[in-house]
């Protein structure tokens, strides 16, 4: 099934594969890192108040808390 068998590839074949992939990737339009990081920061800060794992949750509202004790009837 697989179109390549990595064990059969020589180091030269692997290098050729890498160069071909780089030739494709070089055409990518890249944004400014500073702008992207600002966006990541804003995204996180917008969502952080709703984030239970970050803010914590009171025991009453916690759906995972142990339910009531055992009652023997």
């Amino acid at each position, binding site marked *: 099934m*697989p179109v390549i*068998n990595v064990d059969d590839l020589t180091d030269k074949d692997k290098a050729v594969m890498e160069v071909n*992939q780089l030739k494709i990737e070089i055409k990518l339009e890249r944004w400014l890192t500073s702008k992207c*990081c600002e966006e*990541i920061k804003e995204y*996180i800060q917008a969502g952080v108040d709703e*984030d239970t794992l970050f803010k914590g949750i009171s025991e009453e509202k916690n759906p995972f808390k142990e339910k009531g004790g055992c009652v023997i009837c």
Partner: protein
Amino acid sequence: MVSASQDGKLLVWDTFTGNKLVAVPLKSAWVMSVAFAPSANLVASGGLDNICTVYNIKAASPKTLRELDAHTGYLSCCRFLSDSEILTASGDTTCVLWDLETGKQKMVYTNHIGDCMSLALSPDMNMFISGACDSLAKLWDLREGTCKQTFSGHTSDINAISFFPSGNAIITGSDDCSCKMYDLRSDQEVTDYTDATLNAGVTSLALSNSGRLIFAGYDDFNCHIWDSLKGEKVGVLSGHDNRVSCTGVPADGMGVCTGSWDSFLKLWN
């Protein structure tokens, strides 16, 4: 929640009560990955048998729906797109998109030169990312089958990979003991999560819903918590007696679950 263990069982749990809802005996006990379909009708598992087996757990008793057999290496990771499509990553260095109606491969993604260890789907389901033993993470166009971007920087196998919730960044975890965040649009590594006291490889990772917290499972038996913005370690989940092999956060973000070689799954919040 679904989990599978090398004791040969796949279990579906009610995480609120801790009760087991479904138990599926696995043909091959050497399981490495398990997945839940978004519909919750299907689960999949696979491992050293090189096969991804899909089970219908909504039937009266769990039935094998499909055995996807074409990889020539172990199945390291599987993820459902829907009830009719699943993505697999394999030790044969390829990832494959399968059609579950026919059981055939729709697309084969080749470009890694090391075993593929994990994959993650983008929130918009048009792309996916893979991490491999060639220490590279690659972004793929699901429908075209081509590798769009490659992210280097790690110095050892990438064992865990995840999309940041916005879909514009990815987080990777590696045997080189670090996690990294790469931004997709600027095509760069933007943060490195390393601590001089941490000398164990990262086996798995999961993010909290806002993306602020990264829960990373390590070989040192702990799950360390990183603040993704500050790049600092902010906590640790200790309690396992062996390597933490898997970590997950549910869709509602209410907790985090860790699974370990000590045979326990622990839910934390």
